[in-house]
C-alpha cells in the first residue's frame, strides 16, 4: 500500500519527501482538530466527582 503510494508520487526523491511531509502534516492536523475531539466523546468518561 505505502510502497504503491511511493511509486505513484511524481518527481525526484526530494519532491516525494516534501509531498509526504506535507501530507502527513495535513493528516495530523485533521486528526487533532476534528477526528480526535469527535472520537473523544465515545471514550469512557472519567468520573471525578463523589456521589452515592
Amino acid at each position: 500500500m505505502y510502497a504503491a503510494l511511493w511509486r505513484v508520487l511524481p518527481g525526484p526523491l526530494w519532491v516525494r519527501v516534501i509531498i509526504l511531509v506535507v501530507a502527513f502534516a495535513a493528516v495530523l492536523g485533521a486528526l487533532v482538530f476534528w477526528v480526535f475531539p469527535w472520537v473523544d466523546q465515545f471514550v469512557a468518561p472519567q468520573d471525578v466527582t463523589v456521589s452515592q
Partner: protein
Amino acid sequence: MTEPGQDQAVAPPAGGRRGGATPRPRGRISVVGVLGELLITAGVFVLLFLGWQQWLNDIIVGTQLHGQSVQQSQTWNKAPGPTKAPQPGAPPVITATIANAQKFALLIVPRFGADYYRPIAQGTGVQDVLNKGELGHYPTTQMPGALGNFAIASHRKAYGGNLEHINELHVGDHIFVETQDGWYQYEFRNLQFVKPTGVGVIDPVPEQAGVQPTDRMITLTSCNPFFSTAERIIAYGSFDTFTPRADGPPAEIAATVTGRS
C-alpha cells in the same frame, strides 16, 4: 570470484533494464500486505490519539482557558458587581441563583503554574462542564466565602487536566477563587483519599454530616490514582482573606490575572 568479462556477459545492457523482459520484481499489492499496513496505521492512530488526549490537548485547552479567564476578569473589571456591604469581617457571597453549566468564578493556583487560570461552572455534568475543561461546582455545596464548603470537581488528566498537580500542593499554598466581587484567598490544608462514594468530603463541615459550619472551606475533588477512577483525591483549604475587585488582584496573582504571566 567472477571474471569481469563473465559478469558483463550476463548483465543486461545498460539502459535496457527498465524495458527489459525481466523487470526487477516490484512489491506487488497483496491482501495480507495491505491489511498489515492498515493495522500498523490504526495502531499509530491510537498512539497519536493517546498523545493528543493525555498531553497535547491539555496544553491547547489550558491555553484557551487561560485566555478566556483573562477576558472574563477584564469584563468583570468594567462592570463590577453591585457593591454589597458585607458584614464586618465577612466576605461577600453570591446570592443569585446560578443556572446549570453557567460559569461564575475562576480558579487560580500559583503552585499549578503562572498561567493556571481556569473557569468554574455550576454543576458537575460530565459533558456540559467537566469535559469542556471547566471545574464543576457541586450545586448542593456553598458559594465562595460562605460559611460551609465550596466544593468543586475536575479532571486530573485530559480535558484540560485542571487538577493534574493536586498532589503537589504544599500546606499553606494559596488557592484563589475569583468572582465578580473580587478574590477569595484560601490556604491549602491537607489531602484526603476516599472511595468514589465518599460524599462526606463535600459536607458543609467535611466528614461531619449535620454539623453547623463555623468555617469557610474549599474542597477540590479529582480522580486517583492517575489514569484510574478507583479512588478520589481530595484537597481541602480554609478561607484566609478577601480582596475586593476595586483594590485590584493580590500581588501574588497579578501577572496571571492580567494575562502578562
